[in-house]
């Protein structure tokens, strides 16, 4: 059974198409990777799955655990078991990281202990919980704070938007190991630009998002090695994409 299924999904942002006819299936228990050049729509895909209002679904459907969530409010999707670590989370003055973590962990007897364990796992000082959310966090701190929230939430499906960018080598190992054990019994969608995180996390399948749609899918190692060797120029050779581009060109109004 699929935990996530995208069916002919097309999405607009401010009237501009950012995703076109995206089809994607992630079976329960699998972790998939999404590759793609800058601006190909990777983050848009995550935002659309979450239901952010500026990412308008024009056509197609989003299924989560066989429930149609296409028109559901963000928080209800999250309650079904979707977690996310954002790439560029907004800073919110006065709201503390701990305020959010506490909602997930609750106020049970071991809550304080668990909070401390989480900060330790990600090599963050415990004072970090009383800092204003994402305000003045360094790039690496942002990533770790996002992942900390996901670990506290324990969703059954997690989307990670470039968890490895901006994280220094030392912390990459920490983050990688934490995510690897976290993903063991979960499903996920992982966006990575250079694939560093894949040294630690096993992915069952990879997809390439190119020119607003999923251009190809396959074995993670194979796709990654193509991208690392040739860059996304490799995609330009793809017959499916060439056909798409050609069709679009001839459909242009004269």
């Amino acid at each position, binding site marked *: 059974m699929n935990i996530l299924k995208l069916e002919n999904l097309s999405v607009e942002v401010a009237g501009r198409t950012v995703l076109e006819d995206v089809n994607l299936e992630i079976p329960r228990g699998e972790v998939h990777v999404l590759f793609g050049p800058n601006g190909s729509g990777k983050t848009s895909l995550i935002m659309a799955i979450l239901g952010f209002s500026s990412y308008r679904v024009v056509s197609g459907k989003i299924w989560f655990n066989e429930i149609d969530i296409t028109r559901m409010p963000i*928080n209800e999707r999250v309650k079904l078991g979707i977690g996310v670590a954002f790439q560029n*989370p*907004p800073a*919110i*003055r006065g*709201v503390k990281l701990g305020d959010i973590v506490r*909602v997930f962990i609750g106020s049970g007897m071991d809550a304080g202990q668990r909070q401390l364990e989480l900060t330790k796992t990600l090599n963050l000082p415990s004072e970090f919980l009383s800092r204003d959310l994402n305000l003045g966090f360094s790039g690496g701190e942002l990533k770790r704070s996002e992942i900390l929230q996901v670990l506290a*939430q324990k969703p059954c499906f997690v989307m990670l938007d470039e968890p490895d960018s901006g994280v220094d080598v030392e912390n990459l190992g920490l983050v990688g190991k934490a995510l690897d054990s976290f993903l063991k019994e979960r499903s996920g969608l992982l966006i990575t630009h250079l694939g560093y995180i894949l040294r630690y996390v096993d992915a069952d399948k990879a997809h390439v998002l190119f020119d607003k749609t999923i251009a190809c899918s396959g074995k993670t190692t194979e796709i990654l090695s193509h991208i690392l060797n040739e860059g996304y120029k490799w995609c330009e050779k793809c017959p499916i994409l060439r056909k798409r581009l050609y069709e679009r060109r001839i459909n242009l109004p004269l």
Partner: protein
Amino acid sequence: MSNTKEKALRAKDKSAALGPDLDLERFSRDSRPWPSCPVSSLPEDILQQSSNVGIRPDEKDRAGTYFQIDHSVVFQSVQKPFEGQVEIMSTKEAFEKYNRLKEYWWRLIAVDTDKYTALAELNWDYGYFLRVLEGQKVTLPLQSCLFVSKDNLNQNIHNIIIAEPNSEVQIITGCAVHSNVQRGLHVGISEFYIKERAKLTFTMIHNWAQNFDVRPRTAALVEDNATFVNNYVCLKPVKSLQMYPAAYCKGTNSRVRFNNILYGTRDAYLDVGSKVVLQGGGSRGEVIARAIASDSAQIYARGLLVGEHKDSKAHLECRGLLASDTASIHAIPELLGKVSGTDLSHEAAVGKIVEDQIQYLMARGFSEDEAESLIVRGFMDVSIFGLPDSLRDEIKKMIDATTERAL
């Protein structure tokens, strides 16, 4: 007739520089006297209202208490362990006790500033005299409550607060009205004297009524190596509130900090500023204002930093959050440098709640309303006040309770 009275008489029709002009004739001066009694034996509804502004009726965790209702002083006392550290009494009593009080009276604020200062002189209804003795570090806050129990009453308070050299104290003042009170006018004159190496943190919380008018007039003199922190919280609707407290950093290395949290609801008109005058070498000032305007509230958040010494520095930060399209926030930061070498700066930002922030919190499982209230409460973060933990938590709880009801 004394010189002060004469000046007051001449200014009794003088409009204030800012804020809507009020017709003083429409307020009543008749009040029934309240007998003095322990705070805890006051009527339950008064206790409830006063505890909403930080007053502990049981006097627990407070070093001393002053409680005034309308034109009567109902209670004034220093807790046993703090006797000999602080003095609390009405300013009228203080005049009887200290001949020197007149040196502090109308010294920082001119009696003929406007019709409200004049009114406070011509129809003076007590107010508190708080004095921390030299070298005393008072470990628990002092509390004072100025309460209005009768509709349409005019209450004119004149307070004198003195922190003698090397002393340290926290003061929490709550102003509130009875739930039957709709209209009225409160004028509060407060003159603060923070002497050498003293530290005074003053936190004032206002809970007025929807048709109530408020005109505080405050000034502080900060001497060598002394620190004055002035916190102000206004969360409840008020018809009009206009104040522009000033701190004169006269002393070498004197420090002043103003923190304002304003929450304007319904058709409230809030005009609140903070003025810092840097006169001493090494003097430093900071003004932080947070304003939220909802419904059709109008908020003016002013600030004026004046640099008169070549080694002086001050910064002003104002953030406004608009929670409605019919509300407005007008941030007016002003910097006046009078000598080279003074370093004055400001930053001001007014905007609405950013959709990204709400949706981010929704992605953490909060509903839209919960996310909005979390952001609003976070915006009014009391950790800017620099209060001791217990007092900070008390005030935070109060703000949370008020905003939760309001949102």
